């Protein structure tokens, strides 16, 4: 793919722990076109957030990323800190999970927004401040000019996440990484915040990678979905394909566990039995313990990610047999 904005090749993230090394992300490869919205879904510990942290150079001190993350032709993993700082916050920005603690409590909201513009775009304090107010207005903070002079504790959770969105989109990034941006928010405002993010993304032509465990959110917003399990890509497809014709047993299990309006009140929600294995390196398919249709060699042979159609890939021995 020559027109890709982002091209991740064999990204592996490992953490050194007292009891040994653990692999959080295992040879993940992804491509993203400009303006595209991609969802990464998976349960807790599937490594979905760590992909984003690795890209931003924000891995914990005991974490290490290998492979290649080509963003606009530069490998983010090998970039010296100074050059990485030129990219992040400018062409590449990120929204975090917890808006309550992600803003600096000691700084005025407007100043926190303006700061990035001053550093990256060389704007004066006044210009950057005016831009910040305009952006706050666009994320529908009422009375933005006065609000910009306030501190984070004077904002509600939903408003703080909108401030984070404003901050992330202020520099008109090419790619926005959103790490479960609505998990910490009230259900009633989750949709509102997500729609706002998607809308502004479209306006600025920003591509988005949305990490979530909410398949409903993904269905609404994403062009393409990547299903992650045990740090590996299980299945990747266009959103509608994934919902209509999932092939991987894990994807099917996830979809069966999702409440749907049309089948409401029928027996019980499906569950996937068992829990994800913690730590250790798997030689076969990471899902094998919980898979209901496993084959004898699933535990020993790693299934390759195969193309099923131009926009559909899955890593399962069963699909190879088809």
């Amino acid at each position, binding site marked *: 793919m020559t027109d890709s904005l982002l091209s991740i090749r064999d990204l592996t993230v490992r953490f050194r722990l007292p009891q040994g090394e653990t692999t959080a992300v295992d040879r993940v490869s992804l491509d993203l076109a400009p303006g595209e919205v991609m969802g990464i879904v998976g349960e807790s510990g599937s490594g979905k957030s760590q992909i984003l942290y690795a890209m931003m150079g924000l891995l914990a001190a005991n974490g290490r990323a290998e492979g290649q993350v080509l963003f606009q032709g530069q490998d983010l993993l090998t970039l010296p800190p100074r050059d990485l700082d030129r990219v992040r916050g400018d062409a590449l920005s990120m929204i975090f999970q917890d808006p309550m603690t992600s803003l*600096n409590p000691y700084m005025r909201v407007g100043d926190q927004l303006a700061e990035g513009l001053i*550093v990256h775009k060389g704007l004066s304090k006044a210009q950057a401040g005016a831009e910040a107010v305009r952006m706050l207005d666009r994320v529908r903070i009422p009375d933005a000019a006065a609000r910009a002079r306030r501190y984070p504790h004077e904002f509600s959770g939903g408003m703080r996440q909108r401030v984070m969105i404003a901050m992330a989109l202020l520099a008109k990034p090419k790619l926005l990484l959103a790490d479960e941006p609505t998990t910490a928010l009230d259900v009633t405002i989750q949709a509102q915040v997500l729609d706002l993010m998607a809308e502004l993304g479209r306006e600025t032509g920003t591509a988005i990678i949305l990490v979530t465990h909410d398949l409903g959110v993904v269905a609404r917003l994403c062009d393409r979905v990547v299903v992650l399990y045990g740090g590996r890509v299980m299945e990747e497809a266009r959103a509608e394909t994934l919902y209509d014709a999932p092939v991987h047993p894990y994807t099917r299990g996830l979809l069966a566990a999702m409440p749907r309006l049309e089948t409401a009140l029928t027996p019980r929600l499906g569950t996937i039995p068992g829990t994800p294995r913690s730590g250790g390196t798997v030689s076969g398919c990471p899902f094998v313990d919980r898979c209901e249709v496993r084959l004898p060699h699933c535990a020993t042979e790693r299934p390759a990610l195969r193309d099923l159609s131009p926009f559909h890939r899955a890593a399962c021995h069963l699909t190879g047999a088809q």
Partner: protein
Amino acid sequence: MLRFVGRRLWYGAWTLAALVTLTFFVMRLAPGGPFSRNRKISPEVQANIEAAFHLDEPLWQQFARFVWGVLRLDLGPSTRHRDYSVNDLIASGLPYSLTIGFWAIVVASLVGVALGIAGALRRNGMTDYVAGTVGVVGIAIPIFVIGPVMQVIFGLRLGWLPIGGWDGTWRSLVLPVVVLALPNIAYISRLTRASMIETLRENYVRTARAKGIGWRRTLWRHTLTGALLPVIAYLGPATAAIITGSILIETIFAVPGIGRHFVDAALNRDYPLVMGITLLYGGMLILFNIATDVVRAILDPRIRNER
């Protein structure tokens, strides 16, 4: 902000009043008086002396006299140091205590904070190791051990600095200031290090890093405020304690400060002097605590809004 300070001063004044009142009466509960002696003196002489200091009046009248004096900034005559008023004694000793205390707290905060930050940024590195060692040594070894050891090394062996007394130059300041600062360097550096490490883990510091504004800006604008708030909270009472609590230092280094008066006055039942020094120390403690609160309120908008 002005109202905030005003209110704190108002409450501070009441606290001080309560402290002074309590001290006045508790002091009288202690057996003996300023002119109780082993040597017998005739009752007439005793009565005369006590009358001269108004000790023959009922207690409430003495208290009223004392309060009236405080309001006129006159703390009365010392019963022990004849011909000196308490005002004279404080005026002559306070400059020394203040000078030593001021420099000690300046040295302790600068060195302590710097060591703490360096330790937190390069955890388990050389600086961290050295700072940690200094910390343990500074806290574990008491002043009355470090003081004489320093006197022997720098005063007697090397002959670089005077071992005590006051020659009016910076040279006689060095040893007392260093010895007084040492335990505080230790404490402040440990406090700074812990608080810094905690702040570096904050989500908002991660946000700052994600903004690509460079590590310097991330450190100065996004990490230090949060990291130094607990240190500032400690500095208020510590400053008061250092300025006033240098009794040991003044004794070891023979500095003519007011620290020594405190113990002497209590032992000699020098009521006016005890009251004067209590007033002074209490006032200082309250003032420095208010100053700390004001600085914290300036730095932290959440504290500001609470009041």
